[in-house]
């Protein structure tokens, strides 16, 4: 069962061959048995999962089942789950059990899905290797057979590793600068970062509010579409969530791709990309040509500034977003604070890890008197230039295709000495968040036995088209079916 997709599991449940309680128990058993190798979960919610499964079986018996009823999945530990510890990968929230649900959490409950637990992640979603988690690094299932401990990417590294290792068929993720797409690519699974405002951010612990977006991580585009049907939609509790009709993302998966106009941004096929990686990506694009698509080169002249703009805007927003973690109302508080200042400064020094502290300090600095114009305002202007590049590109083409990451999964510890080395991991993904457009990562080959992702970038609210393009690719390739040994 563990090898089946969401769509397949749904059919198994529908056929009555297995109950949700049985299925959930199988997944829980396997998860507990196997996850020691990956450390992809922070919390396994055994009891709640079985209770949800039982409820799902009752709903099915009553004839009210949805596609998702009784299907197991997992949440990235950034989505608040009522009564289940939500840590955001941080010591700061090690004891935090929210008395409320994120909207995304509520949505999955509403369709009867069974949440097995909360997946590991970079602390407060800040990282590209899942090494900044308070709960320890996650190990990529790929490469383990050779005795290598490679990173799964980040920040949604736990979700990516868990899906790749067949511990869950699907998991939620969030993407602020590449945090769904890059781990999806490094773990050989399918991930989608939706248009900013498509998925509610309510109850999703904020890193950088104008960039964060929740999205699906699964093995197939079809499963990602099924997740989007649950996740997408207007939420009156999120002012930045867009009130716009949500299509059935599965309805257009089988549209033919004939005539699809693909643009290849020349800046994304640069010297940062290894020839072996480039070859895999170009092979994938050739598959699209076989499916009837046309390809042309396009330019995103300001893309090179994306990392610089991002590392002002994201830390600036984060510096304020993380001020609420002050030890006063919830979460970690230092032992015996001698005064108020001591409570604040020690709580935050002890509760946050190094990468989080670095970003808070950089963000505070960029916003401080005398630097605001040169950093924050300048970055916002560059952000507009980057957005304009994409708007211009989509005048000529339907989608853009590029690599997701410059290299495949690297070995743990390789990039932890200098934060900037790690930041460059997101060179091909970050501009998409600045523009707010949707993009996918689709398994597209291997280099040295490690998965390579193809990035498909679309115009605003074109998720259905991206999923369609990914699904059609998955009908003629089997990269997404490969299983780590």
């Amino acid at each position, binding site marked *: 069962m563990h090898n089946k997709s969401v769509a397949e599991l749904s059919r198994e449940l529908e056929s009555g061959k297995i109950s949700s309680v049985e299925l959930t128990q199988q997944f829980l058993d396997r998860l507990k048995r196997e996850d020691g190798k990956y450390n992809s979960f922070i919390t396994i919610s055994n009891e709640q999962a079985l209770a949800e499964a039982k409820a799902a079986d009752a709903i099915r018996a009553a004839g009210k089942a949805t596609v998702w009823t009784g299907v197991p999945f997992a949440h990235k530990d950034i989505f608040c789950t009522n009564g289940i510890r939500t840590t955001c990968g941080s010591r700061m929230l090690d004891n935090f059990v929210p008395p409320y649900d994120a909207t995304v959490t509520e949505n999955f409950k509403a369709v009867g899905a069974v949440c097995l637990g909360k997946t590991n992640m970079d602390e407060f979603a800040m990282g590209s290797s899942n090494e900044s988690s308070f709960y320890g690094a996650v190990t990529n299932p790929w490469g383990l057979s050779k005795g290598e401990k490679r990173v799964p990417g980040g920040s949604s590294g736990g979700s990516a590793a868990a899906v790749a290792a067949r511990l869950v068929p699907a998991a939620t993720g969030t993407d602020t600068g590449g945090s769904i797409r890059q781990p999806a690519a490094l773990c050989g699974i399918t991930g989608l970062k939706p248009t900013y405002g498509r998925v509610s951010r309510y109850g999703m612990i904020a890193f950088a509010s104008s960039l964060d977006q929740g999205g699906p991580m699964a093995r197939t585009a079809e499963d990602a579409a099924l997740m989007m049907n649950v996740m997408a939609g207007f939420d009156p509790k999120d002012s930045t969530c867009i*009130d716009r009709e949500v299509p059935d993302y599965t309805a257009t998966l089988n549209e033919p791709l004939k005539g699809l106009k693909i643009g290849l941004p020349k800046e994304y096929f640069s010297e940062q990309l290894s020839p072996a990686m480039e070859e895999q990506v170009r092979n994938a694009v050739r598959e699209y040509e076989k499916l009837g698509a046309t390809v042309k080169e396009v330019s995103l002249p300001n893309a090179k500034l994306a990392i*610089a703009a991002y590392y002002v805007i994201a830390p600036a927003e984060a510096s304020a977003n993380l001020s609420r973690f002050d030890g006063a109302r919830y979460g970690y508080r230092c032992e015996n604070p001698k*005064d108020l200042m001591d409570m604040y400064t020690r709580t935050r020094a002890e509760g946050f890890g190094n990468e989080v502290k670095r970003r808070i300090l*950089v963000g505070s600095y960029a916003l*401080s008197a005398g630097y605001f114009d040169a950093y924050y305002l*300048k970055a916002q202007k*560059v952000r*507009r230039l980057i957005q304009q590049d994409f708007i211009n590109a989509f005048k000529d083409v339907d989608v853009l295709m590029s690599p997701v990451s410059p290299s495949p999964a690297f070995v743990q510890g390789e990039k932890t000495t*200098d*934060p900037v080395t790690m930041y460059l991991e997101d060179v091909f993904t970050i501009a998409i968040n600045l523009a707010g457009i949707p993009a996918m990562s689709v398994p597209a080959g291997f280099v040295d036995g490690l998965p390579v992702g193809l990035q498909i970038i679309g115009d605003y609210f074109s998720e259905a088209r991206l999923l369609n393009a990914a699904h059609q690719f998955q009908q003629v390739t089997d990269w997404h079916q490969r299983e780590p040994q």
Partner: protein
Amino acid sequence: MSISREDIEKVAVLARIKVDDEQVSALEKDLGNILDLVDQLSAADTDNVEPMAHPLNATQRLRPDVVTETNQREAFQAIAPATEDGLYLVPKVIE
């Protein structure tokens, strides 16, 4: 651009994060590297470019003035570090 120890200490106070001397030294290097990366921005020609705060060109929705919340103090204070008489307790606030 480099960042001075003094700036780091100042910003750490603003951000309420305790840093010791050793950490300041490490931060001097790391933040310096990050700011070098960020300094690429200065090369961009942004004359007459409107700053972009949000990806979507949307405007704010307003909520009707209707009470939708009920008292959930017990649930919220069950996860608080210190409370008494319904109040959150913190080290003495001196005005």
